[in-house]
């Protein structure tokens, strides 16, 4: 079993969710984080007059789904479809991290392994 974590732009979350559901991945969760990457940060006002500073960070959203190994490519492609900016994409579109999950347990039933996903 694999854990797929994607860090994406917050405004694409609805598209990503739609694409995930389209490939049959209907179990996942997401949360907002603050991200720093190749894409520059954003200028914000500091204090009450016109000083500005460039923050390094931007708002980002993390989506995570734990899946069977076989779904890997579908899920990754779905996320890319939802999160990539039109055209060739733009810096800041995000990353996907894949890690191995040893076990999954469903709280309700106590089932484990792939059955529990």
């Amino acid at each position, binding site marked *: 079993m694999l854990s797929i974590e994607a860090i994406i732009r917050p405004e694409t979350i609805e598209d990503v969710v739609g694409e995930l559901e389209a490939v049959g991945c209907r179990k996942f969760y997401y949360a907002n984080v603050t991200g720093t990457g190749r894409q520059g940060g954003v*200028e*914000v*006002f*500091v*204090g*009450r*007059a*016109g*000083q*500005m*500073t460039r*923050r390094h960070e931007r708002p980002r959203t993390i989506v995570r789904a734990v899946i069977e190994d076989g779904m890997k490519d579908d899920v990754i492609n779905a996320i890319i479809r939802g999160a990539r900016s039109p055209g060739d994409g733009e810096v800041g579109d995000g990353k996907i991290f894949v890690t191995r999950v040893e076990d999954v347990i469903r709280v309700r039933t106590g089932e484990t392994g792939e059955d529990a996903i």
Partner: protein
Amino acid sequence: MGEFNSGDTAWMLMSTAMVLFMTPGLAFFYGGLVRGRNAISTISLSFVSMAVASLVWVLWGYSLAFGDGGDLNAFVGDLSYIGLSGIGINDGGNIPDLLFVAFQMMFAIITPALITGAIVERFKFTTYIIFLVLWLTLVYAPICHWVWAEGGWLFDMGALDFAGGTVVHINAGVAALVAAVLVGRRRRPALEPHNVPYVVLGAGILWFGWFGFNAGSGLAANGQGANALLVTNTAAAAAALTWGIMSYVQTKRVSTVGIATGAVAGLVAITPAAGFVNVMGALVLGIGAGIIPYFFVLYRPRMGFDDALDVFGVHGVAGIWGALGTGVFAVEAIGGTAGLLEGNPEQMGAQIAGVAATLIYSGVATFIILKVLDLIPGLGLREPESAEDEGLDLAAHGERAYVADGAD
């Protein structure tokens, strides 16, 4: 039995309530500007003034400010009205004396609350309570007496301060500066305000309440009051727009906090002038209030002291501009006194005297009070470093501003 003017009384009841409401407004204005972990602490510093200053005022503050000080009357009142003794419910002129007491009380509440903007995120709450009592007694009441009590030396000199440019704003501004220097810099100043909507809410309440502050200061519902309301609004609008334009010209973005700050600066600048200038004077005062404090606030971070929310930059600087501007733009047909532009240069002398005296007295006296409090064992001005890092909300108040469900 008093034959009060019920219309004037109605307006003054209302103005009193409106000025009271400014203090929670200020609490949000300041509270939005700090870090989230100091939001409650900042709000509380303002809010508690409603509790403490109210009591000081009815117990002895009013008497010190407006009593007849006898030989010392040029400088301070006496204790004849202690606990408001001797003021009956039917005493008064066009309005009840008790209502004048209450209206003035609201100024005594908000003035020290203004100071707190300089010292947020590190000042010790319990020491502040004691500071509040001493400062109102030793600084606010005397200056109030000088300017507004018959026989006060600035009053007699004819210094114009309609609604508190010196008494409230310059006074609070310089005290804030001194306090910021003495308490020292914050360890990790925030870059961005933690809640901009709160800043706007606060500014909105302040703007609303300021109509009571300024248009109530004539103590009557009449043409001068109407003019005061109109010029107050005009100066606020002009300064807000100017500040917004300044930020746009400099950065290509319009800062909302800047617009709100500009509005407050404009309101400060018009405060001493509201009973004396017309709409055109207000326009100039407002535009100036959107420029001069703007630059002061812009360069303050390089000045070495940490007046966290720019109390001196906004209230002190705009207050001085307004106090001097009153001397320049006063129109005889409005408030009975001509200013420089109408050929009365002498007025400038009184205005300068008012500004200078307030700066010096308030600066020195505030310094002494804080130094003494710093030395008293168990008091001290500043929270420990660990409390500052953790945030004063948890450390000093045992509270958190926002608690989520689940992972709170």
